């Protein structure tokens, strides 16, 4: 069983590897340096977006682009749905994922607006076995810095982050609680949640 899993996993990696070879030249496995590099890029974009000035709408738009490029929105949105995702169709999940991206950008875009004038500084990277955790510090003027960690993996076939942990509080965990409560109020109907989520966050 163990071996079989490893085999399918290897095959999957191979396929992903081949796909990205075609798309973007040779693909290297995720390591300390590339995980840190990814978060460095991501953080530079967040810093630029929060300090660019301009309207909230503009910031949210920028965040949507950042999530599009750096986050594994498919796995985050699917995980946020919890066990109910298992019985949902691919189309349902796709539609939900699209709306979820906007919701997350609105929610976190608003939150980061409070940190205008702040800078996120990448500190160190920890190999956690199946993924890498890149620790950073958010330095806000006039108050104590706080810790943000980005969890990065290439298990989707691309190097992307799948969780942001702020002072211990995980985006993935809190969105699973949030989506769970919203689904409970809608008899578990993901379609209805997709419709309503467009105006939430």
């Amino acid at each position: 069983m163990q071996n079989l899993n490893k085999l399918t996993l290897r095959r999957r990696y191979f396929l992903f590897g081949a796909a990205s070879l075609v798309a973007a030249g040779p693909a290297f496995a995720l390591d300390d340096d590339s995980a840190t590099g990814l978060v460095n890029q991501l953080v530079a974009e967040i810093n630029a977006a929060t300090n660019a000035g301009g309207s909230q709408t503009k910031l949210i738009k920028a965040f949507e682009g950042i999530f599009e490029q750096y986050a594994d929105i498919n796995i985050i949105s699917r995980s946020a749905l919890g066990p109910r995702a298992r019985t949902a169709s691919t189309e349902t999940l796709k539609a939900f994922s699209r709306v979820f991206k906007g919701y997350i950008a609105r929610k976190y875009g608003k939150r980061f607006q409070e940190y205008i004038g702040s800078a996120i500084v990448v500190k160190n990277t920890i190999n956690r076995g199946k993924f890498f955790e890149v620790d950073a510090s958010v330095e806000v003027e006039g108050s104590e810095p706080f810790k943000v960690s980005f969890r990065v993996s290439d298990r989707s076939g691309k190097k992307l982050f799948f969780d942001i942990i702020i002072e211990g509080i995980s985006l993935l965990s809190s969105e699973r609680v949030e989506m769970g409560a919203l689904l409970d109020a809608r008899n578990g109907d993901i379609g209805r949640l997709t419709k309503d989520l467009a105006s939430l966050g």
Partner: protein
Amino acid sequence: MFERGNGITILKYMVLFGLLSACSPRSGIVVDDPFETVNRKAHALNKGLDSNILSPVSKGYSYVVPNMVEDSVSNFSSNLSLPGKVVNNILQLDISAAANNTARLVINSTIGLVGLFDPSDSMGFEERSTDFGQTLQRWGFAEGAYIEIPLVGPSNIRDGMGLFVNMMLDPTGSALTPTMNFYRSWSGIGSVLQKRQIYGDQIDEVLYGSADSYAQSRLVYLQNRRFQLKDNLSDAYIDPYAEFE
């Protein structure tokens, strides 16, 4: 204020609770909440108190009182909590934090004018926060079930016990004159009001911006507290890929 007999009783309860919480599941479990029904009632009460009293009063407080005065009130209160923190540092055998907090107490009580100012911060002695809940954790007590305490908020069995012991064994209370204790109580309220304002957006989002404020505040408390205490045994973040491997 505190008699020996009471101390032994408290210790007995601690051991009893400790045994109970040691029996509860721990690793890999994000939330252990067998008292959810009661907890949700306490949450409704706390939320009502926040929206009707704490939140509006804290807004008024920060509107009326100048920031510098707010800071001094909070500094005063925080300075008087230092002896209790030093005791906990020692109980945790964290001598460096004990020395740091003692230096803070001495500097802020003298140069800082009975703690109204915090000059030690800029001298490199930053606050090293601790409490009896953390001491219990260092001693090997398990976190135990989640509880929401009326008037206090989210907690767990271990931190709830810690809070109780902190109140009973606080070394400052018995050393102060009644007048100082009176100022201390009021400065404690001021400090809570200021905190409610500083963390206003985050608190509002959890309490009033989420679909289930009880479940959301439970998660926020547990994950943030485990982070503070570096309680790696309770690390139970989601690995979303695991399902497909």
